């Protein structure tokens, strides 16, 4: 009966959650430290990379996406793709418009 369905009953050890928790706290420390470094354009890239890594940990482990159905994983992937695509389209307009010339 359960064939084709997800592993909704997967029980994850609290130690996994504790490890993720410590990694997230380390991420906060790293983000603050990184913002005090003089890296120019790399600053926002570095702090956003840390934020994406933290968000991925939360989604995969805290939100159980790792043990979720393929449909859920595909939906999240599609959402991220569409969101990045929309940002790219907005930025295309932003960088290609002759600001101030009209």
């Amino acid at each position, binding site marked *: *009966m*359960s064939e084709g*369905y*997800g592993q*909704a*009953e997967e*029980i*994850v050890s*609290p130690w996994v*959650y*504790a490890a*993720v*928790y410590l990694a*997230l*706290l380390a*991420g*906060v420390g790293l*983000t*603050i430290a990184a*913002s*005090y*470094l*003089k890296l120019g354009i790399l*600053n*926002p890239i570095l*702090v*956003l990379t*840390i*934020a994406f890594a*933290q*968000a991925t940990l*939360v*989604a995969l*482990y*805290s*939100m*159980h996406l790792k043990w*979720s*159905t393929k*449909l*859920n994983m595909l*939906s*999240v992937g599609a*959402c*991220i793709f569409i*969101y990045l695509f*929309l*940002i790219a389209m*907005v*930025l295309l307009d*932003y960088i290609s418009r002759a600001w101030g010339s009209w």
Partner: protein
Amino acid sequence: MPDSSVHAQGKPGAADQAHAGAAPYLLHHFNSVEQQADTSSFAMWLFLLTEVMFFGGLFVVYLIYRNWYYPAFVAGSRQLSVLWGGINSVLLITSSFTMTLAVWNARMRRQGGLVLCLALTFVLGLVFLGIKGGEYKEKFDKHHIPGEHYSLQSFLDPDSDPVAAGTAPLPLDEARHTELFFSLYFAMTGMHALHMIVGMGLMAFILFRARAGAYTAGHTAFVEYFGLYWHFVDIIWIFLFPLLYLINRH
């Protein structure tokens, strides 16, 4: 009312017979508990993805204006306290951790642990909102709330403000754009706080029901999906903190 529907209500239908002996929380339109769980978790994820798009719009506005008025965004960001923002990050991440433990306790059918973890999550959320309220109050006192009484003094004359002292003054046209930074700051953190307030209302309800043993008898769906919502709120803060508090701190 036609006769056929009277019969349909009076006699147990085929679906009801197929569910004989199944878990009492299995709804009649699902084949199995697994199918029910997968369907409802998919619905919850879809809801959260619409929320990603909702906050996503605000992040795009932030991205464009930050590029456009970078010096104003740096000066605005320096007005925020890294200490309080950092403490709030730790609080929210800790509340996310206690929420995962709440779900684990529900699945392990430990009522005491579930109630304790939910209560801790609630208190951590409350402290987060308290600190956020303190930060808003400080902005109110300094007239940094966008609108009629918005003050440019901290940006035109930084030495008059201990937080901004030592930084270069902004020209008037650039200083005016700090109001845009604070508009985005209040829109984004305010919307985030509103999500937390809604979440805490739901959490109070769950806590009340958990004390009556509602989620420790095998049906943990409500706690689990609420957990997804709470973690999502955590993820939004993970992005808000560096983007608002930590622009060019060196």
